[in-house]
């Protein structure tokens, strides 16, 4: 084990091709994740958080492609890896959990076989060995009666159970990095809480680093040590989780925190009118000039409209991309 980070993303750019014109759907995104660390990416739909994860695992497909920057995983650049080598990495050392387990699982194959496949493909196990390993894997994600459940097809399982199967597949080969893209958005809150606990416990036990992606700022702050906030394809702020809520630095983050009806707020402070963020999230084809948040920002100036801010390091170790950070 070396002191170098497990994952280093530098100036990642992802291009979206719309009718021959290329737009940068993700630009200047840089972050690192250390071994065993849990980091969060939070943002609204279209901010580029999910495609960032897809880029990390080599699953971008036309009309999306990596347009620049480097992704270093365990010291090796992987952004230009040939498909065959990427396949070796994907699933064994970098794994991913998707939002909707019903569409991510193969409906025609028993779940046990889908888990077993991981051991056959990546560990060279025989199907027989792999199927008994699959039972253990299901047991480790606390699916009751795993020896019977392995024979079930995805449609026979509830949403929570399907997401457990996804986690079992993702963690089967003991990956170094787990990408979790909205893993609980389709689930009820009590089931969400169980799945989050499971991800937290299993990643801690196996020393797996996790990149957790969600639109739910509260969930990300609860799960992660560090949080990156994305807006319109750029990382606008990266902070320790507790600082994002207590002292948000970017006006977008501050606006989001103030706009959320946080549980318990009314009981403590009475009902206050929620602070609104005016305007809407811009589409990729119409990202504004200068700071991408400027048309919606309550404090924007001519400088914000003309000049794209660079990142500024904050004394607490985080950074912010704003000319006039708070």
């Amino acid at each position, binding site marked *: 084990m070396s002191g170098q980070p497990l994952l280093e993303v530098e100036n990642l750019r992802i291009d979206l091709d719309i009718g021959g014109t290329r737009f940068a759907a993700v630009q200047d995104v840089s972050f690192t994740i250390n071994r065993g660390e849990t980091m969060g990416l939070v943002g*609204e739909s279209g901010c580029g958080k999910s495609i960032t994860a897809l880029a990390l695992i080599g699953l971008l497909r036309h009309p999306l492609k990596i347009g620049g920057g480097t992704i270093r995983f365990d010291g090796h650049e992987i952004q230009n890896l040939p498909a065959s080598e990427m396949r070796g990495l994907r699933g064994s050392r970098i794994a991913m959990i998707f939002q909707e387990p019903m569409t991510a699982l193969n409906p025609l194959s028993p779940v046990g076989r889908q888990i077993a496949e991981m051991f056959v493909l990546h560990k060279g196990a025989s199907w027989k060995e792999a199927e008994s390993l699959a039972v253990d894997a299901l047991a480790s994600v606390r699916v009751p009666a795993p020896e019977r459940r392995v024979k079930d097809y995805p449609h026979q399982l509830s949403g929570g159970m399907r997401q457990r199967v996804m986690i079992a597949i993702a963690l089967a080969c003991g990956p170094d990095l787990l990408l979790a893209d909205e893993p609980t958005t389709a689930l009820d809150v*009590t*089931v969400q*809480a*169980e799945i989050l606990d499971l991800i937290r416990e299993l990643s801690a036990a196996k020393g797996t680093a996790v990149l957790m992606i969600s*639109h739910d700022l509260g969930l990300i702050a609860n799960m992660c040590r560090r949080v990156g906030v994305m807006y319109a394809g750029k990382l606008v702020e990266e902070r320790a989780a507790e600082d994002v809520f207590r002292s948000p630095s970017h006006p977008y983050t501050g606006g989001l925190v103030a*706009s959320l009806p*946080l549980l318990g707020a009314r009981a403590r402070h009475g009902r206050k009118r*929620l602070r609104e963020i005016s305007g*809407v999230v811009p589409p990729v084809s119409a990202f504004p000039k200068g700071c991408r948040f400027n048309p919606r920002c309550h404090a924007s100036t001519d400088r914000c409209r003309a000049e794209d801010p660079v990142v500024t390091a904050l004394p607490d170790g985080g950074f912010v991309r704003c000319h006039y950070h708070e």
Partner: protein
Amino acid sequence: MEASYGAIIMNNPSADTILRVEDLAVHFPLGGGLFGGPRRYLHAVDGVDLELKQGECLGLVGESGCGKSTLALTILGLQEPTRGRIVLAGHEVSGDGMDRKARARIAQMVFQDPYSSLNPRQTVRRTLEAPLRLHGITTASEIDERITEMLGRVGLRPDHAERYPHEFSGGQRQRIGIARALILEPKIIILDEPVSALDVSIRAQIINLLLELKETLGLSYIMISHDLGVVEHMSDTVAVMYLGRIVETGGWQSIFTNPRHPYTRALISAIPDPFKRSRGDKITGEIPNPLDMPSGCGFHPRCPEARDICRVPPVPELEKIGASHFVRCRRVREIAAPDVPLATTG
């Protein structure tokens, strides 16, 4: 034992009650019968009593399959109840008591998804004018006037009327959905997850708008939501449903600062706290198959407080434990008052 919730609201119809639901049940038949063995029923809503006061917002909380959407559809007349009464603005509407059009003038609905709930081939004007025409308002000038006024109320411009849904953002579409619900000047609006399909940065706009409209137009809301932060912010009273029954109901403050049913507590503590890594009361397992209802208290298989007494029939009653606070739990008086893990700072 004190009187049950149902008995109390049935015997005390107060003047400012705009909607009363009494012992409402919706059972869906599921095959069987004749030669297929005994006919089975899914009890989607199983004896619900509700009272909505003029000008208030009732938050309806529960996980998928708890019956909250079926309840909403039944109140709107889009689903036939198996038994029970619905009294809308003083009129009995269950069965053939009130025709669809009369009911539509009293209660309307705002749907969750502003993308699929608007007709993509109709301009906003056509969407808003159809209900007016159906209800006998046919003068062009009056239609114009009402549409312009309504667009203004929901924060849109008069020229937006000529546009199609795809020309609008999600937040604006939800404003159109709200305008459509309000155009007939109903008294009650059912909000089914009104902000959960919207971008996070847009939600505050719609929540603020809904609260303003409630104030200025004297509306009453039934809001279905799984987002407890939104429910706490908007509701005056809250009803928590589990497997077709209300398990706890009361003022928003009782529910959020003094929740007494173990399920309510579990729901609240399941919300990730941004300031703490751990969480409080955990429950495990999933909602049981409603076809195979647990005996006694429906929540006992997942309840951390369950004892033998909870597993035996009958179903516990909704019991009064505070001014207007009712809980359906046999052990409510034995379980210590909660130490609610609400977000501690902020």
